[in-house]
């Protein structure tokens, strides 16, 4: 026993090599992601220069613009600015709603797949995974193509006599919502599936033996047990939805603006405002970090219990 432990400690000879082996990964991500994110935070406290770019003097102008309105020439007493808060609020409820709908469709799907025989389970999972790997841009374009005023969906509805005039879905919040739901649905199914697959069905049997109805069992036994999977799925849908750019840009219009479009606009051409774009990105990142921290703490509590 001691001998094996000793040879195990000797390992396979990669101990002294961890530094050199990890160096490329550290360097790449450290220099080209971590450092840029820190620099972006610095940028959000700089002064805007015309023609895009910044002037390296400290300023809170970007955050001030986000929260307060000082009139057209900046000389009026500050009043709360609602434009950007409205965009954030819309992004949060669109992302929240997309998460809820994904959950309503995703949970039964995940349950259904996890209760299939082993060989068909792999095929079902594969079918769910494939769309995830298909280019998000192409998927969003295909949804736009399908939902257009003269698109196949409206052709079908009018052709079958269900409708007289086309449904105008494109450029509405509904279209953006459908886009978010469609984009991130596989993210909901996969973690819930992983949780249901580990679920011990004897618990359900026990509940049934004690005369619990199927739905009571689902509510009282199944949902609490698979909760970590559900929370993981919700995070995986909510976080990318919050910063989504393609769905609001390609399916929405001026009234469906979300955070992603707001940020992108600040870096386009000379009309942009880099410090403001950086500040909005910092606020978005902070929101995401809060969500992830709440998630980590909730998971920690669940494990302790």
């Amino acid at each position, binding site marked *: 026993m001691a001998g094996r432990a000793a*040879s195990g*400690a000797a*390992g*396979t*000879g*990669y*101990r002294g090599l*961890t530094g050199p*082996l*990890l160096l*490329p*990964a*550290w360097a*790449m991500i*450290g220099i*080209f*992601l971590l*450092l*840029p*994110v820190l*620099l*972006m935070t610095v940028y959000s406290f700089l002064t805007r220069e015309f023609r895009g770019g910044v002037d390296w003097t400290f300023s809170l102008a970007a955050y001030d613009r986000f929260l307060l309105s000082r009139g057209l020439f900046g000389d009026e007493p500050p009043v709360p600015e609602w434009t950007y808060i409205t965009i954030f609020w819309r992004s949060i409820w669109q992302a929240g709603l997309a998460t809820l709908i994904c959950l309503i*469709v*995703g949970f*039964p799907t995940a349950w*259904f797949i996890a*209760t299939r025989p082993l060989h068909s389970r792999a095929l079902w999972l594969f079918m*769910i995974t*494939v*769309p995830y*790997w*298909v*280019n*998000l*841009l*192409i998927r969003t*374009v*295909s*949804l736009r*193509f*399908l939902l257009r005023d003269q*698109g*196949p969906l409206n052709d079908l509805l009018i052709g079958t006599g269900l409708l007289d005039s086309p449904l105008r879905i494109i450029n509405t919040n509904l279209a953006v919502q459908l886009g978010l739901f*469609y984009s991130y*649905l596989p993210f909901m*199914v996969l973690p819930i599936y992983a949780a249901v697959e580990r679920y011990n069905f004897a618990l359900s049997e026990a*509940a*049934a033996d004690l005369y619990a109805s*199927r739905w009571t069992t689902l509510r009282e036994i199944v949902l609490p047990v698979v909760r970590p999977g559900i929370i993981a799925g919700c995070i995986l849908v909510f976080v990318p939805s*919050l910063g989504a*750019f393609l769905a609001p840009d*390609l399916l929405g219009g001026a009234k469906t603006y979300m*955070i*992603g479009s707001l940020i992108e606009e600040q*870096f386009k051409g000379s009309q942009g405002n880099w410090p403001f774009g*950086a500040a909005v*990105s910092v606020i*978005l*990142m902070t929101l*995401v970090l809060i969500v992830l921290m709440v998630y980590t703490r909730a998971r920690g509590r669940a494990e302790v219990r």
Partner: protein
Amino acid sequence: MAGCPDIRRYPGFAAMAALCLTILYVPLAVVIAYSFNASTSLTNWGGVSLRWYADLFTGVEAPRFRAAAWNSITIATLAATASTIIAAAAAVAMVRGGRFRGKGATFALINLPLMVPEIVTAVATLIFFSTIGLMTGYLTILIAHITFCIPFAYLPIAARLEGIEETFEQAARDLYATRAQAFRLILLPLMTPGIISGFLLAFIISLDDFIITNFVKGAGMETLPTAIFGSVKQGIKPNILALSTVMLTVSILFVTLSYFVNRLGQRSRA
């Protein structure tokens, strides 16, 4: 007795699963179907034809698409190769290196590209390149792609490594194999399915990326997704449907390949 299969079945769940697949596949199927439409109009069906596929090679936009395809494919190949090598080295250190200081931080760093919202990564990268004065273009796209592909390549490689017992290499070392020999003759062949799988996933992720590329590409530089986006902004045309179908097929092909390589690996392990 009857309760046994019953507890697994809920009314409506099967219908929901069917609905889920329908939602996921109908838009793609519609695009594929209409890409074979002979008509110039998107609305009317003019019979089956390959004219829009021919248009990709001979049409007005053909030179633009050709340049974009070349950029996309070379960037994806280079980025996937580089990120796979970096990820494989990191995975060996993380799985085989025992405990070391900063292991948790390193794990967080490797997964950082998955944590930061894509649009934030895009903004941060653009600001960084513009500050250090690196001209945006091919090189900046490549650097950004290598960076965000690392976790995608890392995950399958690390998963594969964790399933390989150390005893094989230890036996080789006991028989006086050098560390290099043990790696080349034992560990590398065993981890190859994970490496291939990681490479394929990194390749698709790079090929598919739009948001980050759009920020760091600079003027005049296009990859396939940015070219498609530019065209779609002027309205969807049939040639875009054909191009989308081609890209869709490539993605599905690669995922299927990665899936089977993984399955093959699992069988050889068992």
